[in-house]
């Protein structure tokens, strides 16, 4: 089983997208968490950092995972590595 250049490109794209999403994940979790005391302006009643921890970050996690699934399924098709009907 030899991998073609196309296969390598698929993998590079996957790794790049994974890295991007992990960076967003880290920023919303750790950078926003680190500056929680500073991010205390009122956001519909919540201090902003509290809202991020209780709702914002969680919703973003769901959206990111959903987006990744959609992106990768599309990538599978484009690069001819999608599964057939098993």
């Amino acid at each position, binding site marked *: *089983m030899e*991998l073609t250049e196309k*296969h390598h490109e*698929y*993998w590079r794209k*996957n*790794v790049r997208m*994974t890295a991007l*999403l*992990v960076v967003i*994940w880290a920023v919303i*979790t*750790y950078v926003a*968490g*680190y500056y*929680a*005391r500073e991010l*205390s302006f*009122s*956001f*519909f*009643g*919540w*201090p902003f*950092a*509290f*809202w991020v*921890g*209780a*709702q914002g*970050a*969680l*919703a973003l*996690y*769901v959206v*990111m*995972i*959903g987006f*990744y*699934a959609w992106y*990768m*399924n599309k990538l*599978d098709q484009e690069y001819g*590595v*999608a*599964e*057939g009907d*098993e």
Partner: protein
Amino acid sequence: MATKAQTQREFFAFLKKAYSFYVGGFIAFIIVLAVAEQMGLPRRWIGYIFLFATIALYAGIGIMSRTAEITEYYVAGRRVPAIFNGMATGADWMSAASFIGMAGTLYLTGYFGLAFVMGWTGGYCLVAFFLAPYLRKFGQFTIPDFLGARYGGNIPRLVGVFGAILCSFTYVVAQIYGVGLITTRLVGVPFELGIFLGLGGILVCSVLGGMRAVTWTQVAQYIILIIAYLIPLVWLSVKHTNFPIAHLVYGHVLEKVSAREVELANDPKENEVRKIFADRAAAGAAKLKDVQKSLEADTAAANKRLADAKAANAPAAEMKAAEAAVAKLPKDVDAAKKAYTAESKLGPRAAPISRHAEAFPGKDEKARDINRRNFLALIFCLMVGTAALPHILMRYYTTPSVREARASVTWSLFFIFLLYFSAPALAVLVKYDVYTLLVGTHFDKLPAWVAAWQSVDASLLSIADINGDGILQRAELSIGGDIVVLATPEIAGLPYVISGLVAAGGLAAALSTADGLLLTIANALSHDLYYKMIDPTASTARRVTISKILLLVVALAAATVASQKPADILFLVSAAFSFAAATFFPALVLGIFWRRANKWGATLGMIAGLGVTFYYMTQTQGWLRGVFGVTKPIELWWDIQPISAGLFGIPLGFAVIVIVSLLTPAPDKDTQELVDHVRYPHLVGDIDTRGT
């Protein structure tokens, strides 16, 4: 539940129909019980009906799904549609601690509790990006399977088996303990009997049908637990905001809670109560220095007071108080020591009110910094631990394809999200209720649920008029976290049937997690240890039989440990996350993303990660220090609490794998092919690694 002849599409349609009927039936069941309650059905009966009806339901699904076929038993035939696997993972994931404990932790610790909310959801990002699709493509039965195939040989597999059992067993003990607690509260049976009743429900289900039965039961359990969590929240939200969806509007309730906290912090009566506690704690500590002398002094003082009162012909109230003081004197030195120790521990009750919304409170910049550091470290350990717990990762072997595995992680987190973003709302609403409706009320006029819960368990709720002014102060109220979820139906003014529903939800959460964990342990022993390492020629029928026997043995062992009521059970659960994170995460992720990672790197990396995590805990955690006889003073590394020990184990695990792998020969060609195989959902001329 389905025959082989069905196509996946028909199977999905069948499942949708079956579970729609189930939801309808369950709601009808609640309505019938509610009507019966209005007609005079006693509370105790409602408890019994909930307990036996739900356990019978789970057992029934188990009997319907019984199987002896190997892929059905280990991975539910790999035909679980994404959305149903999402629900099953949600129930598998959310334990008694999530269902009952989470809102309470948030109530007690405010912002800090959000570490659990974020940690236990954000971990799914790591599952989705780094593990689930690749493990699905690999497609065998257990997590040690992957370690064995990727790193070659039995040594990495054996380390994996050990790690999987270590983290799953501590976790399952806590679940069975939770089952015992809930059944005791729900129907008042003794704790040990409760454990074995629950165990019966778990075993009928998992022994008969393995992963297949557990999957379909978990879906049913998820539906019960989410209904049970949301109904009281909706009612409480209407009570305080006139709007059913608390999530959208509780920010304003939080503002009111914060304002009330300022009021209470400046209230002279509150400060009076706090001062009494501080004085009592100081006096208790002083008396402990010489118990004998203090007891004599106390006895003399109490007798003198009574004598004086008699001599002065004091009013009846004073006489009664003086008599009570004499009656309350400790009987001997041991009793006195116990009493003074209890008094000396009242210090925390004198603490000023904590601010719910404040991030990282502390007396100075340094304390705030330590608080923040531990908050972030805890999130990190919980997230990485989530992405490394074998009983969760195993669930992604059960989907029909890589594509469905990806979708399934999304559904999993969505279903978990429903509960986790409700918990902070529930905590704030209950706090608002307590701070505004309860605190400041006359002791004669407290709502009925207060007395009811105080009599059930004083560690859950206890009140006493410390300063004798007849009014309840915030500092006079001592609350255990679990009360937040358990008492919400009564706080919201719902009928008892909803309280029964909440208990049934907690039971579902504990049972479903226990199911998944027991399977993980039994499979690690039967599949990895017995079949792969001891007798590779065993027939499939024999493997399934051995797996079932081991499941029984492990379940009984866990129940026996749980019935001893081990001390620091909550700590053990959190420790499981650090263990899993440090053992599995580096080896699994590098196995997929770095071709050069090899057998020795992975083996030593797992041992080093687990080793340093375990070492740090034994040096710093009170209970473990006792077990291992550590006596030197606690030295925290960078002020990190033992619960987050994985913070040191995870990076060390990565570092050791990289360094050792580079120092030893690269993996062979077959391993390289395996890496390609898991990275691409489909390749022409692909190898086949599916388990049989």
